[in-house]
């Protein structure tokens, strides 16, 4: 083994420092080619073997810009040099992660050659050579080495888009090609669409622009150079923040800025200045007199965009952002929020988007290059111009597109096609879109993950029974209560009357951590997925099916492993003692909510199981009452349930989800178990517990609720959750649905509860507002939530029966796990909602319906209504689109009323009216639900 030292210099923040790093050059690095006999692969990790007669060596610019092409299976047998990887890592981390994933994918033939450390391919910096040239030379040296090493039998091709590098390579006798010419030589025309056009080729594009009436002129202001932005930020002229585009109005965006402690509103694409949703931008404030120039009250203000009918939001995070002036009570319309414009983009958040092409006439010659406009499903994204040779194929498809650039002269950004998802309107395609948009991995589990499963058929072994940490509860009458047809049963209960008049109540949770070991591929996959995702017609599991539906599922009449929380309770539901233990149980019945409810209601039944149910129910009622007295909110959401045709998977009926006493009973005990577990883990692990908190809503967040309530003459006290709960109870109107409507409105003012690591916050912040509990966590659904798996490990460790995995000692990593769980959780919810929306649309396509609706919000040209029966919400326009604002109607802010000028007609908030619902397709491929007043 040859070793040698190399000296390199490195500068660090303004100081010039000489750094000396050793480099050990090796002769044991394998070339990764299967036909090569000289290289002995020392480790199994370099199992990837390149087999083809042509081997590609890719340059950095190819990896950076053509990663979508490389991900296509048509490109294979690629050598990725370590210098290329390093450079990619420095320039774009997300591309680096993608190329790394390719290299580790056993199905693809990508091989990483550590040329830096190979004795023959190591290059030393020459006098006056730039780092770029050095890398280019290293790539050429490595290519040459490969060619020499493999001899004439294999052709080694350098793929580079750097003209200078290609010229030098050809001079040195290396086969070199640009990516375009290589892809052309493969003779697969659809691949060519994946090739990103370098910016210099934009000359062709100008012709296209010219042919349109819009003159080629500068549309957007120039982005300020980075140096100016940094100094501007330092002097407080500019403000930095993440741009978030309004989900319901893509021409309005918000930048949350710490420097002024408020959100800056940005109106219109010109002010947004080519920024995408999620970009980190620098914003300049507009002069104050321009702050209110765009009246935000109208539903839509530019071009053809309009507000859609959508599911009623379930929390403040989902709801359309209200821009109603907060201090509406004042008579002078003072613009309360600053508005600004984007002057520069600090960090782009470009990724791939799914949607479809704007319909356009086919160009004359097929197969020639055509330009098309791509419309994203996500309304926050502007249209994207792409170049394609297969327009005919793509027109009626859902496709994925990536953004490449956006220059000042073009109205739309320029991107390229990545892949086809399927036909427009096809339910499977649309469902897959939902998954892609929400970043949900629905791929089948890999062989490595499945290898972690215990062999089937599985049953409780004698070792499990003999294990001293496991108590044997098989004799106890344990049962489960779940929704009908539930296969992944993760909780079961028991309730035994004790001789002293108290009750022993147990909650038994599937012992998932007995099968999912920390650090295993199965665990990694589950932590990445974070949660199971429930769509209307399918479920995407967090853990493989054998675990969720068989091994862990606490089914009736089979022995299963469980993690139990057992309390001794007085008949008044006071907890006397709590203990936790791993256990073996044998459930005697898997009931559905309906069955359980029927048993409790049927006074003739006196069997032990029914008695247990009744005892539990009475305990649960006491616990629930106590919780409500403590100030827990009874919130309502408009959850709907579909009846799906088993054959066609089309929705047959929609209805509100009915909640029974049995649901509340199970829920109550789950809450209690979660609270007990939270207290236990926090006591033993004060800084590394995973808990769940629900922040109290601020007064601003509750403002829309108060405004609405005041308009109908109800005074809500929001000083505490207790006060709010009480005043919600008092808010009873003329009709039975009124109270529920107010509760629904209250729910959507709240934020969502989030997971967090107990070391990151101080104890008062642990509070769960909605449940009025000082501590809360998730313990009861480890089959479908990863947070619960985590908590199971913490609980086991707190009992001393399981070693705490190392990740708990690493606070940043723990925080990132919690963040990922929140992200996945939120995405799963968004996906479920999107799936329901999709099915609602399919449902109403065939059935235009007249129904009752309630007004929930007044706008200047109409109002937003909520349809209780179907749980959806959408705009009803009083004036047609052309006449802005109408002039015919005016809005009474305080009364929350919209009144016709001649006072002949008026509509006020929460009023009931009848509407007609129908699916219309104003733009092709964008069907939407339209609500009209009858």
């Amino acid at each position, binding site marked *: 083994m040859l070793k040698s030292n190399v000296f390199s210099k490195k500068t660090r923040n303004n100081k010039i420092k000489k750094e*000396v*790093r*050793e480099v*050990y050059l*090796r002769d044991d690095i394998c070339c990764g080619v299967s036909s090569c006999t000289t290289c002995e692969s020392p480790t199994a*990790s370099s199992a990837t073997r390149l087999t083809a007669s042509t081997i590609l060596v890719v340059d950095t610019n190819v990896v950076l810009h053509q990663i979508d092409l490389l991900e296509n299976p048509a490109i294979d047998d690629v050598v990725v040099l370590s210098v290329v990887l390093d450079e990619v890592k420095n320039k774009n981390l997300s591309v680096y992660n993608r190329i790394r994933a390719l290299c580790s994918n056993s199905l693809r033939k990508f091989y990483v050659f550590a040329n830096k450390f190979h004795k023959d391919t190591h290059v030393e910096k020459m006098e006056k050579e730039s780092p770029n040239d050095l890398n280019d030379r290293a790539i050429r040296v490595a290519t040459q080495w490969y060619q020499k090493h493999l001899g004439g039998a294999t052709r080694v091709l350098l793929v580079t888009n750097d003209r200078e590098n290609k010229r030098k390579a050809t001079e040195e006798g290396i086969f070199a090609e640009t990516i375009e010419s290589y892809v052309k030589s493969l003779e697969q025309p659809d691949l060519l669409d994946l090739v990103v056009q370098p910016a210099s080729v934009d000359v062709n594009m100008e012709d296209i622009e010219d042919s349109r009436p819009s003159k080629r002129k500068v549309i957007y202001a120039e982005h300020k150079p980075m140096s100016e932005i940094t100094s501007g930020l330092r002097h407080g002229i500019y403000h930095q923040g993440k741009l978030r585009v309004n989900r319901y109005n893509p021409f309005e965006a918000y930048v949350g800025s710490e420097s002024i402690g408020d959100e800056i509103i940005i109106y219109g694409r010109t002010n947004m200045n080519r920024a995408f949703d999620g970009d980190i931008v620098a914003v300049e404030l507009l002069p104050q007199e321009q702050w209110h120039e765009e009246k935000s009250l109208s539903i839509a203000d530019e071009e053809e965009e309009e507000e859609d009918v959508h599911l009623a939001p379930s929390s403040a995070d989902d709801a359309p952002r209200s821009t109603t002036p907060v201090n509406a009570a004042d008579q002078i319309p003072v613009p309360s929020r600053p508005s600004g414009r984007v002057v520069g983009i600090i960090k782009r958040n470009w990724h791939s988007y799914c949607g479809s092409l704007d319909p356009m006439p086919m160009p004359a010659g097929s197969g020639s290059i055509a330009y098309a406009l791509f419309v994203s499903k996500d309304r926050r994204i502007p249209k994207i111009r792409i170049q394609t040779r297969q327009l005919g194929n793509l027109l009626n498809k859902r496709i994925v597109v990536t953004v490449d650039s956006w220059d000042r002269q073009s109205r739309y950004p320029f991107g390229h096609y990545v892949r086809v998802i399927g036909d427009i309107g096809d339910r499977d395609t649309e469902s897959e879109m939902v998954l892609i948009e929400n970043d949900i991995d629905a791929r089948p589990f890999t062989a490595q993950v499945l290898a972690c499963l215990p062999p089937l058929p599985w049953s409780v072994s004698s070792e499990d029974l003999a294990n001293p940490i496991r108590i044997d509860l098989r004799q106890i009458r344990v049962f489960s209560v779940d929704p009908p047809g539930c296969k992944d049963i993760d909780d079961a209960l028991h309730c035994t009357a004790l001789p002293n008049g108290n009750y022993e109540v147990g909650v038994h949770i599937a012992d998932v951590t007995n099968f999912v070991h920390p650090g295993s591929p199965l665990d990694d996959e589950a932590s990445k997925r974070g949660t199971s995702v429930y769509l209307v017609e399918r479920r995407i599991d967090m853990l493989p099916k054998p675990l969720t539906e068989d091994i862990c599922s606490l089914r009736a009449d089979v022995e299963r492993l469980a993690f139990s929380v057992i309390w001794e309770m007085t008949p008044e539901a006071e907890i006397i003692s709590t203990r936790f233990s791993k256990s073996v149980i044998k459930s005697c019945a898997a009931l559905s909510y309906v069955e359980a409810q029927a048993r409790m209601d049927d006074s003739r039944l006196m069997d032990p199981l029914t008695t247990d149910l009744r005892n539990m129910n009475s305990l649960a009622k006491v616990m629930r009452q106590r919780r409500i007295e403590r100030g827990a909110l009874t919130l309502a959401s408009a959850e709907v349930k579909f009846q799906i045709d088993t054959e066609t998977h089309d929705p047959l009926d929609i209805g509100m989800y009915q909640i029974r006493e049995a649901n509340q009973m199970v829920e109550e005990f789950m809450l209690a178990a979660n609270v007990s577990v939270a207290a236990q883990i926090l006591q033993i692990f004060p800084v590394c517990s995973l808990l769940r908190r629900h922040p109290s809503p601020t007064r601003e967040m509750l403002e829309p609720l108060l405004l609405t309530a005041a308009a109908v003459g109800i005074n809500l006290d929001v000083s505490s959750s207790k006060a709010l709960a009480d005043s919600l109870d008092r808010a009873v109107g003329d009709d039975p649905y009124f109270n529920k409507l107010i509760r629904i409105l209250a729910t959507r003012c709240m934020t969502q509860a989030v997971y967090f690591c107990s070391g990151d916050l101080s104890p008062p912040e642990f509070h769960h507002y909605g449940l009025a509990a000082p501590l809360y966590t998730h313990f009861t659904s480890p089959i479908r939530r990863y947070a619960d798996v985590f908590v199971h490990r913490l609980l086991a460790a707190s009992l001393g029966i399981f*070693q705490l995995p*190392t990740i708990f000692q690493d606070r940043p990593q723990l925080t990132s796990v919690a963040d990922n769980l929140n992200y996945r959780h939120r995405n799963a919810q968004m996906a479920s909602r999107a799936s329901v929306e999709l099915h609602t649309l399919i449902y109403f396509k065939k059935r235009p319906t007249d129904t009752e609706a309630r007004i929930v919000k007044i706008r200047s040209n109409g109002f937003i209504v909520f349809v209780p029966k179907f749980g959806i919400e959408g705009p009803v326009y009083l004036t047609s689109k052309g006449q802005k604002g109408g002039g015919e109607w005016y809005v009474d802010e305080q009364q929350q009323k919209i009144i016709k000028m001649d006072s002949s007609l008026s509509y006020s908030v929460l009023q009931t009216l009848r509407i007609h619902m129908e699916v219309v397709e104003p733009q092709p491929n964008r069907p939407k639900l339209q609500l009209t007043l009858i």
Partner: protein
Amino acid sequence: MEFVSPEGLRLDGRRPTEMRQLRAEIGVVSKADGSAMFEMGNTKVIAAVYGPREVQNKGQQINNDHALVRCEYSMANFSTGDRVRKPKGDRRSIEISLVIRQTMEACIMTHLMPRSQIDIFVQVLQADGGTRSACINAATLALADAGIPMCDLVTSCSAGYLNSTPLLDLNYIEDSAGGADVTVGILPTLDKVTLLQMDAKLPTNIFEDVMQLATEGCKAIANYIREMLAENTKQLEFRRDS
């Protein structure tokens, strides 16, 4: 940060269980009774031993039957990249001096040299991680060069745990990554541990792997030091004969 690439190579091209290049020279300070220079990659230290000699400060002598071992560790101002003048006797130096003294005391047969003192001076000429280990190795060589009776050699090596991989002989970048750093000193023939230090935390099972790795590193160093000493003895023999 990625300290071990998926290809199994570290930042400097080593594999996880490989040590840096060792180099040693005996007799570099001719005035001293024994001296040695020891290099582990870019870490370079020099050790000089004076004694056994009469106790200079009688007050320091606690035990009359045993020799007094003193040790002074220092870093040259130029040993790190930036030239900062460090005050002599800072906490870190005092700690390392103590560590080295205790480690060496364990193998020196002090009872053979009552009422005498042995001074060990180690200085870091160039620091690139693992200075503690390099100092101990240099001191062993210097003591042997001075002809001081020892029951065994003492050798030391460090190991760490980054990217879920145990790594042998950390260099400066790996050392400052914030992972655990285990320094082990052993008596290779007697197979005993005389020094065990760790900063940061590790679960016990992983710690055992890391310590095992470090111990193996110590043994490899012991072999190298024995070779060096044998070579040195041969040369001495040759010089005497000629």
